[in-house]
């Protein structure tokens, strides 16, 4: 296993490295972001600051454009890639052309040089023959090898004016004239000295290694080299072809043909220029083509995007323009079909909602008119009951009472169906909840007198103002107060008002039968009865709290219940102080401070101040909080059933399916409780 460990290590080593590089860049970028957001805490390296100021900030608009514009991105990518391709192509093509040119040049040069060498050999042989004859005749004229060589070079080079140069060098490494007295009178550098046509510097132009090779090898050798002219220091690239030759005296010398690449350079330059021009054209054209092509795709996509936005904004009759049968057209058709279906569905729903509302309205009217007659008739009969016999008189009383009940039931049903149809509208205006509470208390006084309860108001010293629909708030509070009096068993009912942290709250506390575990959420269910066996003394409709919850929700508020068996209950209405705000907490804790559990804690010796601040509502998110001794009979199975876990108005679905929501509201409740404490702290 460890044997092949190295290879993969190396394998993964690379990406890690690059990733490191990227992440460094990212980190730098993020650091810049943090800085520019002003959210960076702690010291920041001054270099980073500089980077942010001088590099990142000016780049931001461009970066945004880059991120948001797919057309720009595609065109830029196309440009970059086509530049790469064109460069690669250029390099390959120029290499090919260059090789071809060199090859042709070499061929031509070699054959030409071969011809030259042959001519030189012939000339040497001829000179050797004439020398032999001259020797016989005793004449020495024209047999001087230096002059012969000079003439030879001139003769050979005369054929290629400017196309090639001829150079002759002595063979055997030394190019010095070796002081042969026979050659002493030779002009220039001596009989074996270098000779060159034109203004070639023979010594500098011929590469030394070629000369060495020529000493040992027969046959023509070639090599590319830089030819130096006497007139200038700059070299001229050329092909050098050399061969060892013999002069008429049989002495070896080296004859070189130099073919400058002038023509080839010119051709190559021309090719290069052409290629560059073509490349620039190709790149620009490719960019333009990419732009056009992307435009074809992007334009409909952008259109679809803008139309989707309009659709989402509710302009349901928006459609895409469809032309042709291509993919874009299919996209448009599919989009239009979708929009069409959406429109139809939404219209159906609207129609349904309208019908529902209309139905409610019609039922309301159709039922109410006869009910009015029945009611008036019942009242007239009821007024005259004293003249009837006892059976008829009692019947008249029953009729009167039940017509009343029927009427309130009808009213509540209609109200609920108005909520269900979404036809309920909030008419919020600034309301002082103290006035509302006073009206409610005034209305509930007769009932409270009958039951023997006192109605007490706390926290009404300063205004408790909120933007609310006073009609609805009054209905909610009337419901809560009447419920509290009815279930209060003649004990006091306390209405507590508070405002803090952008929220107002009214809590109605009673000390009656209270709520059994789990009932705190169920009380808001429609037609729910605390105890089916209990006599319906006042005969509510069973819809009061459901309507109250809907009213609270319409305000964006909460209506929650807390209760303990035998210890009474508390219902708390929390509303945002400004209509449309989101509630974060309530100024009044849901579980009252005089709850049995809180008192139990106090009795156990925990200082009141501490419990008052942090334990006003003891933590119970776990559901495992030790149950105080007094509440031992509370089954700890259902966490939601523990006192204090009120139903959140917002989560009605959870409230109905209450069996499953044991854990969920606990978290919400804890969070909310934090808000409560905050709210209370600010309230103080």
């Amino acid at each position, binding site marked *: 296993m460890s044997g092949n460990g190295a290879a993969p290590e190396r394998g993964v080593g690379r990406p890690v490295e690059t990733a490191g590089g990227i992440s460094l860049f990212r980190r730098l970028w993020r650091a810049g972001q943090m800085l520019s957001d002003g959210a960076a805490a702690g010291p920041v390296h001054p270099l980073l600051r500089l980077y942010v100021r001088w590099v990142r900030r000016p780049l931001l608009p461009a970066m945004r454009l880059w991120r948001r514009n797919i057309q720009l991105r595609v065109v830029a990518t196309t440009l970059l890639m086509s530049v790469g391709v064109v460069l690669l192509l250029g390099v390959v093509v120029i290499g090919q052309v260059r090789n071809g040119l060199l090859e042709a040049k070499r061929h031509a040069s070699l054959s030409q040089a071969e011809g030259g060498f042959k001519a030189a050999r012939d000339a040497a042989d001829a000179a050797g023959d004439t020398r032999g004859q001259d020797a016989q005749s005793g004449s020495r004229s024209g047999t001087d090898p230096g002059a012969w060589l000079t003439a030879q070079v001139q003769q050979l080079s005369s054929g290629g004016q400017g196309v090639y140069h001829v150079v002759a060098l002595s063979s055997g490494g030394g190019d010095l004239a070796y002081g042969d007295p026979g050659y002493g009178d030779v002009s220039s550098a001596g009989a074996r000295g270098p000779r060159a046509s034109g203004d070639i510097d023979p010594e500098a132009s011929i590469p030394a290694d070629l000369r060495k090779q020529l000493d040992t090898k027969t046959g023509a050798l070639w090599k590319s080299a830089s030819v130096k002219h006497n007139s200038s220091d700059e070299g001229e690239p050329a092909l050098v072809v050399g061969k060892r030759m013999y002069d008429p005296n049989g002495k070896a010398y080296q004859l070189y043909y130099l073919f400058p690449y002038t023509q080839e350079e010119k051709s190559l330059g021309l090719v290069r220029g052409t290629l560059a021009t073509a490349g620039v054209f190709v790149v620009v054209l490719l960019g333009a083509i990419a732009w056009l092509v992307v435009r074809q795709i992007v334009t409909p996509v952008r259109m679809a995007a803008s139309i989707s936005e309009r659709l989402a904004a509710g302009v349901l009759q928006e459609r895409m323009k469809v032309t042709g049968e291509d993919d874009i057209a299919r996209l448009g058709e599919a989009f239009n079909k979708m929009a069409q279906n959406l429109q139809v569905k939404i219209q159906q729903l609207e129609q349904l909602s309208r019908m529902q509302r209309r139905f409610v309205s019609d039922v309301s009217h159709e039922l109410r008119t006869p009910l009015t007659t029945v009611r008036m008739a019942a009242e007239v009969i009821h007024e005259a009951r004293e003249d009837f016999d006892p059976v008829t008189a009692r019947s008249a009383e029953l009729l009167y009472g039940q017509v009343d009940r029927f009427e309130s039931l009808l009213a509540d049903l209609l109200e609920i169906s108005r909520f269900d149809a979404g*036809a309920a509208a909030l008419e919020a205006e600034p309301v002082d909840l103290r006035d509302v509470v006073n009206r409610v208390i005034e209305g509930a006084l007769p009932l409270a007198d009958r039951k023997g309860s006192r109605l007490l108001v706390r926290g009404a010293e300063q205004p408790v103002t909120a933007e609310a629909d006073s009609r609805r708030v009054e209905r909610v509070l009337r419901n809560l107060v009447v419920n509290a009096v009815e279930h209060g068993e003649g004990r006091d009912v306390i209405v507590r008002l508070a405002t803090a942290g952008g929220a107002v709250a009214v809590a109605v506390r009673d000390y009656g039968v209270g709520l059994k575990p789990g009932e705190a959420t169920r009380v808001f269910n429609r037609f729910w009865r605390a105890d089916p066996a209990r006599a319906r003394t006042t005969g509510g409709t069973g819809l009061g709290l459901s309507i109250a919850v809907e009213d609270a929700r319409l305000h964006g508020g909460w209506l929650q219940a807390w209760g303990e068996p035998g210890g009474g209950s508390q219902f708390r209405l929390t509303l945002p102080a400004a209509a449309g705000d989101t509630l974060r907490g309530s100024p009044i804790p849901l579980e009252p401070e005089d709850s049995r559990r809180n008192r139990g804690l106090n009795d156990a010796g925990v200082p009141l101040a501490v419990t008052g601040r942090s334990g006003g509502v003891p933590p119970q998110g776990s559901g495992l909080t030790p149950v105080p001794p007094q509440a031992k009979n509370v089954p700890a199975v259902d966490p939601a059933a523990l006192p204090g876990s009120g139903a959140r108005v917002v989560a009605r679905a959870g409230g109905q399916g209450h069996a499953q929501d044991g854990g969920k509201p606990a978290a919400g409740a804890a969070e909310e409780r934090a808000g409560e404490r905050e709210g209370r702290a600010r309230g103080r």
Partner: protein
Amino acid sequence: MKGRVLVVDDDTALAEMLGIVLRGEGFEPSFVADGDKALAAFREVKPDLVLLDLMLPGRDGIEVCRLIRAESGVPIVMLTAKSDTVDVVVGLESGADDYIVKPFKPKELVARIRARLRRSEEPAPEQLGIGDLVIDVAGHSVKRDGHSIALTPLEFDLLVALARKPWQVFTREVLLEQVWGYRHAADTRLVNVHVQRLRSKVEKDPERPEIVVTVRGVGYKAGPS
């Protein structure tokens, strides 16, 4: 107390029952079941008050209300089965003084009718000023620079209530009690709609009222004179 009441309702059973109750309370009811005939009946009967159902065959209640209001300031109480805001507001804006939602208690209805008729009792001679208006309470007239402004009895009562105590800010509930005669708070939309209507008649620029000034979050008060 005068007590001619014109009942405009197409439901014969309800109309008959209303007749029984009204007669029992000492009023003189007369009936019309068709919106088209309502105006003719109104001219013939010259009632002291009109009970008007909103849903009628022929002309609907809103239209009838507008027509009656065009030629008379007689109190109009709407009977409506719809407590929805829109219906109520439309009814009030067409000129009704008050509305009562079916099903209502007979006593409640009688109380409303009485409250609307009560103002017909002779008031003491009294001269009030509000803004640049001069109100002659006994003569039931409102004048600006000598030109009288026509107001319905209810609008007149509203204006007088505000003008009597120019230092006081009236909440909508207090106005409901004083002008409409509600003992328990009812729909404050009544006040809002009627203040708008009153303003459209007495204000120089109803957008920037100077006679009936809104005190935000509380209610209304008389403008400085």
